[in-house]
């Protein structure tokens, strides 16, 4: 390491006050704005602060505290725990496979601390950490070595397989895409990327044969929602009606007929975006979509700004994960993709999902706070 470079690297350790100064408070403000959007939407969904909105904001306050606490934790310490978290995630997934709750045809919930958790949410974060940890010490040359790539590939496939078994197609796909993004950022050779994408495309018809009936129904109704307007297609049709009837400026706060007359299915959770669309129109949806985009790119900027590979890859993975939530959820309520069970982060009602998102943002913020720390990749020539 050259002298100039050494100068640029900050102190290996700095005080709590200094760390707080390094937190991106603008980013925190944007998160608060998003949670406020959630408050407004859930206020409308519940016809008042109860039962959703007030709990939503309490959870957010708790999540924010958690996030800032995690942001104070040294990223190198987090890095050391990466594989521990990964192991924990896999154990939780195995547990849920044997003793979890069955809900909506899938076994994906587990009781912890009075809340129901989806271990797959935690698994995604742990996977990002583990992959970043693995690639942190990988030189460009080593990235060309297939034997070096085999363990992280397995590290992706094991949880993806377990999540598919639940079955939870949406989360499995998101997990695979997030893992692949980390691979890409770590420097996977392009031809391998092409082969991977090809293999994934080839697996689609194979996967379809292994889908559960409810998942196939979802695809069939996605392709033609009117085929079953009162059954499986009902959600898609009603959600599109809510979306479309909002028009440019919406029907006004608390004035959404689809929302208040209960035509909207699961409106406070997965379909919360339709409330915004119906009551605030295209103006509202584009504003919210813009806010989400800013948050995604904020994460990407943090990745670019980071001086160590571990932090870069973690920030990339977390941003990608957040992006996938947003994309899949919004595309789902528009009936553009046949996936269910993906909430809109920080807007949808749901405690465990909110906490997990805030933990991930805490790790992201830790990356940002510790963006300039000296973080050896463990190689002798460093």
């Amino acid at each position: 390491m050259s002298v100039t470079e050494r100068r640029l690297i900050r102190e290996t350790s700095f005080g709590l006050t200094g760390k707080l100064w390094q937190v991106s408070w603008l980013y925190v403000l944007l998160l608060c704005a998003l949670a406020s959007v959630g408050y407004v939407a859930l206020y409308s969904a519940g016809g008042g602060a109860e039962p959703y909105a007030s709990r939503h904001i309490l959870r957010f306050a708790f999540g924010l505290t958690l996030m800032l606490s995690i942001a104070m934790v040294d990223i190198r310490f987090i890095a050391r725990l990466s594989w521990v978290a990964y192991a924990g995630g896999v154990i939780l997934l195995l547990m849920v496979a044997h003793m979890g709750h069955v809900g909506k045809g899938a076994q994906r919930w587990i009781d912890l601390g009075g809340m129901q958790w989806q271990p797959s949410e935690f698994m995604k974060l742990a996977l990002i950490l583990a992959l970043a940890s693995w690639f942190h010490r990988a030189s460009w040359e080593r990235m060309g070595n297939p034997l070096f790539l085999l363990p992280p590939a397995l590290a992706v496939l094991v949880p993806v397989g377990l999540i598919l078994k639940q079955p939870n197609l949406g989360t499995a796909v998101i997990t695979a895409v997030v893992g692949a993004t980390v691979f890409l950022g770590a420097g996977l050779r392009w031809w391998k990327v092409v082969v991977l994408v090809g293999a994934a495309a080839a697996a689609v018809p194979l996967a379809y044969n292994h889908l559960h009936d409810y998942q196939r129904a979802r695809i069939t109704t996605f392709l033609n929602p009117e085929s079953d307007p009162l059954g499986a297609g009902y959600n898609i049709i009603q959600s599109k009606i809510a979306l479309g009837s909002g028009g440019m400026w919406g029907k006004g706060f608390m004035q959404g007929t689809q929302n208040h007359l209960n035509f909207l299915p699961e409106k406070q959770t997965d379909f919360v975006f339709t409330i915004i669309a119906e009551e605030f129109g295209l103006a509202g949806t584009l504003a919210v979509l813009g806010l989400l985009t800013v948050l995604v790119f904020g994460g990407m900027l943090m990745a670019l700004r980071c001086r160590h590979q571990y932090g870069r890859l973690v920030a990339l993975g977390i941003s990608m994960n957040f992006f996938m939530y947003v994309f899949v959820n919004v595309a789902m309520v528009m009936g553009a993709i046949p996936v269910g069970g993906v909430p809109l982060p920080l807007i949808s009602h749901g405690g465990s999902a909110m906490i997990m998102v805030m933990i991930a943002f805490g790790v992201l913020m830790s990356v940002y706070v510790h963006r300039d720390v000296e973080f050896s990749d463990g190689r002798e020539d460093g």
Partner: protein
Amino acid sequence: MPVRRESKRTGVFTRRALLVAGAQLTALGVLGAKLYQVQVVEGAKYATLADTNRISARLIAPPRGRLLDRSGVAVGGNNQNWRALLIAEQTADVGSTLDAFAKIVTLADHERARIERELRRHRRFIPITVREFLSWEDMAAIEVNAPDLPGILIDVGTTRQYPFGASLAHVVGYVAPPNESDMGEEPMLALPGIRIGRSGLEKFHDLKLRGKAGAVQLEVNAVGRVIRELERQEGTQGEDITLTIDATLQQQVLSHLGDESASAVVMDCRNGEVLAMATNPSFDPSVFNSGVSQAQWLEWTKNRRAPLINKAAAGLYAPGSTFKMVVALAGMEAKAISPWDKINCPGFLDLGDSRFHCWSRGGHGMLDLHGGLKNSCDVYFYEVARRTGMDHIAAMANRFGLGVPLDIELPGARKGFVPTRNWRIAQGHPWNIGDTIVHGIGQGYLQLTPMSLCTMVSRLATGRAVQPHLTRSIGGVIQRGARAEDWPSLGLSERELHAVRDGMWAVINEEHGTAPIAKLLLPNIQMAGKTGSTQVRRVSREAREHGFKSEDMPWEFRPHALFVAFAPYDAPKYALAVVVEHGNAGAATAAPIARDIMTDVLNRDPAAHREAPAQRVAEGGHSG
């Protein structure tokens, strides 16, 4: 070269991160574009769909118009129907609510079974009818015990009510729930509790009585529960229709029919207003409102007195001697006879091999028209018919409203039948002179209704072609036909008409007339009339000569008894026709009834009982 290695790795990451960001931006851009497509480009379509989702238009049935008698008394009205309803979602336990209800107001097992069936079929917030037609006592009991009856509420609907019940059943008719074939044309008929006219005036004026349905736009939620009313458009109430009938007189007339299977029609002979049209036996029209049981239906249809048939307008009888006035007028118009031409009655008329008997075996001797009608001499009218010919008789009958459709507002009314020679020949039979002769005394193929006989008498009395009708005003507008001038003259010579009226006067008021029993016991008012008895079964001459009495025959073979009359004789106002089925002789059975009816009519003077005349007169026919 650590720095170069580090920068290589960093450069790759930076490029790829930017690539990923580009892909994310593209994807989010596509979402934004798709949102624009759905929310703005197709927005109108989805806005319509959202309204379709939330707005449910429902029809509200207006109250059915009332039917009033000529002085404004309701003969077909709407009664409030207090009902107990149950809303399942408002009670924790439907069973215990019904148990409590059964303790306060009885609840039969089959009622309970029906309620439970309906509860299963409907959503929990839809009210189910527990009991209809609650009395005040029941309602008070339910109100007092309301705390024990969660989910029970009382509401009011309407039901058709006939205050005069059976006495006007054949005229007013009845309403019943529409069946599926009625539904197609009118969505209002699909409403619960709606009734349509099935018979009588209820059927004839059904569209006017129904009114126009209103509509209410309701906002409903995803499960169909009503959230609020958005818009209400009241319907048009059905029109009130005033009849020519006098309900009080109707009851009096019916009471004079006693236990006979009989019918009577009373008309204002100056304008054709039907003041009473009674048929005995009758039925309770309100039974159809809630549904007729199989047993009740069988009892009605098997009854040989046919209570469901309006005998006055649909019963067909040979007119017998009541037809003789028409024969006389036909003869005079054809110049075959004059009122003072005398015809000898030896008790029979021989024609070729056939001998036609007079009802009087000894004969009446020399008779002019006055004597022929007064004695109802058969031979006199055999001879008149023979001289006149059937076609003249039939044409005259038609002018008197016999055998032609009368414009009466009763869907079941029949026009009867008057034969002509051509009709018989068209059937492949010859028309013999003997056929003409039997039609001269109102027998043969003649089939007429009491309604048309009353019309005949009215036209005789006034010389005008009055049509019988039952509707006086619709929605307060007097219909055409209420004034005598509305009706054209028959174009008959007043002298000839007078000769016939004179004969009818003699029947009652002269010594040795056929029906002195019908003489009115009123000062200064005289009635003119004519008897008739028509054989249902042919009685042989031998039987007759061996002292046969028709009273000895089984009821259904006895002759029908008829009587037609008008009064006052010098200024005709009222006409009537009475037909007693199997009543034997007209003079013995029908004439006293006619006398009693006319006495009541003249005492009551129903033509004077009427609503204030309206300013306007409706265009078109009197039946509207």
